[in-house]
């Protein structure tokens, strides 16, 4: 596992966003450690929205930024297509500095390379579904027949076939967001920016749309930056997750890393309630076979259930039920570790690291 990207499609380099007239002074003060966020607010009348955010997203990767409201995540995502200018730092898309682009070049980038989905849907009420979906093509001057054909395909991809000529206010919330999704993919951009796209929907519809999105994402293989305040959603969708708090990216890692190895108490509180069953692998909770043998004097492992190191706790539970033996972990033909019932239960509870050796990290 572990997402190895050859190429950074999106790269954020030390992004700062400070709102207020004396923003530059505020950055200096915070950088040199003189003032805290509250001091900046009181003394300089500035609000720190994003503080020194650096990350990169590889081709085809889904990168989730998770944070509570007010953590600066929606501000951060708007820097990618420069809807917001950073106070300091720069954004590179496929190696090109977005902040150095002229107006025309920037518009071209937005129309051709980047699709965006908004929490508020932001559909145009005076345009029907087809014309909403084809908007990015229309501003680029694509001829009408071609526009309609592309729109039809995008509408089909989000399972809204037959609704082309309806207007947004005739659609339910979930359908409206499907239109938003179709609009974002219609111009066939290589990057998708998703700003809490499913947060305004009720849980069942949200789950369905997450499914649609993951299906689309697997088919189209787009580089995606996905903003959410819902950790379950981030874990379900993201290849990697960044946790954001008060404008700072606190931790960046795979869902498993974040859940099993939280960087601080804030992240730990967050991930505490998350089910580990489909996240944590056998490699994380096992102990080395030799160590187990020494303490338990067991020679014969023949009748034991066997798992691979990347199997999730859920699989281990299935294997453990109905036998008194621990689970043997095999990497290929090599016996490498043992997961006892105790370790498994602790792992489900979230305390798996106590037994995990040095093998966990990938």
């Amino acid at each position, binding site marked *: 596992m572990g997402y190895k990207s050859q190429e950074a499609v999106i790269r954020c380099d030390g992004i700062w966003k400070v709102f207020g007239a004396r923003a530059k002074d505020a950055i200096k003060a915070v950088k040199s450690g003189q003032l805290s966020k509250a001091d900046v607010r009181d003394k300089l009348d500035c609000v720190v929205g994003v503080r020194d955010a650096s990350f990169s997203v590889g081709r085809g990767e889904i990168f989730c930024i998770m944070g509570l409201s007010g953590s600066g995540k929606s501000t951060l995502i708007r820097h990618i*297509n420069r*809807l917001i200018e950073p106070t300091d730092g720069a954004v590179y898309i496929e190696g090109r500095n977005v902040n150095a682009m002229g107006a025309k070049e920037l*518009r*071209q*980038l*937005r*129309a*051709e390379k*980047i*699709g*965006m989905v*908004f929490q*508020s849907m*932001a*559909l*145009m*009420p*005076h345009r*029907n579904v087809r014309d909403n979906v084809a*908007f*990015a093509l*229309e*501003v*680029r001057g694509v001829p009408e027949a071609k526009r309609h054909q592309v729109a039809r395909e995008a509408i089909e991809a989000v399972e809204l076939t037959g609704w082309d000529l*309806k*207007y947004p*206010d*005739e659609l339910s919330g979930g359908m409206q967001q499907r239109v938003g999704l179709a*609009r974002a993919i219609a*111009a066939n951009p290589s990057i998708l*920016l998703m700003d809490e796209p499913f947060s305004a929907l009720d849980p069942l519809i949200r789950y369905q749309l997450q499914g649609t999105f993951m299906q689309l994402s697997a088919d189209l293989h787009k580089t995606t930056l996905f903003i959410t305040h819902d950790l379950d959603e981030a874990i379900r969708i993201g290849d990697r997750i960044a946790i954001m708090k008060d404008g700072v990216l606190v931790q960046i890692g795979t869902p498993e890393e974040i859940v099993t190895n939280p960087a601080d108490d804030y992240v730990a509180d967050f991930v505490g309630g998350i089910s580990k069953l489909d996240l944590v692998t056998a490699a994380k909770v096992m102990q080395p076979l030799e160590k187990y043998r020494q303490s338990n004097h067991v020679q014969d492992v023949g009748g034991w259930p066997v798992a691979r190191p990347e199997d999730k706790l859920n699989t281990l539970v299935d294997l453990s039920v109905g036998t008194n033996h621990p689970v043997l972990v095999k990497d290929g033909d090599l016996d490498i570790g043992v997961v006892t019932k105790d370790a498994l239960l602790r792992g489900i509870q979230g305390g798996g690291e106590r037994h995990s050796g040095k093998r966990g990290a990938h």
Partner: protein
Amino acid sequence: MAEGQNFNWLDPFSSIDLGIAEHSDGIKQWAIEHREAIQPFKFFFDSLIQGIERGFLAVPPLVMLLILVVIAWQTAGRRTALYVAVALVVLGLLSPEAWPLAMTTLAIVVAAVILAVIIGLPLGIIAGKSDRFEAVLRPILDTMQTIPAFVYLVPVVMLIGIGNVAGVIVTIIFALAPLIRLTSLGIRSVNPSVVEAARAFGATPAQIMFKVELPMATPTIFAGLNQTIMLSLSMVVIASMISVRGLGNEVLRAMGRLDAGKAIVGGLGIVMLAIVLDRITQGLGRSGRDRGHRNWWQTGPIGLIVRLIDRK
């Protein structure tokens, strides 16, 4: 200024005289001096207004009535068309002269409203975009709306002379404000997240204006247009004081002769005209949702014709 002995500190204003009225009277002199420069404009607008008036009067009343009813049907639906038809028949039956007088008044109103749109729509859009411009414009609009018409009647007449052009200008001064205000309001109340989405998909500022902001502001702008038309009609009696003909003039003359009957005929004529114009423009302002998301070529008489052609 009477300085010194009898200056009363508790009532300072009665003993200070800055001579504002005398100075302001200079505007009259200024107007008279610049009369010549304004004559070409006056001639142009006068021929425009007369052209519209002659056009309206050249159409036989029954044909004109049918045209207006068809327009009402197209913009506001069948029920309103019926309403407009009744109002127009009542207008025609008020007196034998009522119809031509109403057409003259309609010509003045139409000319005033066309000019008001040409001036007001761009100003309203700029005001919707720029807080500073709106801040400057707002007191001017307040003044235009509240200052009694008689105050600017004299300078306008001195500058332009009596007649239709002065009447149209006086009408515009009074009736322009709501169109500018509501255009600005319409632009300002466009959902900012939709504008942001348009930017995110690479729209140019002009595309955002014409494809997003103006279409979404349209119902509000039409509400402003409706108010401008109504205010124009309410000016026709005052405009008739500077020799603008039409229904307003009837009311003014009837007042002079204490002829209540004639005043009622003229007044009701204005009311009927107001009803007709109000219903037609209110129909224009309905949002897409209210119309059941049908396009203009799918409704009204045009829709009927299109369907008939399709059937063949």
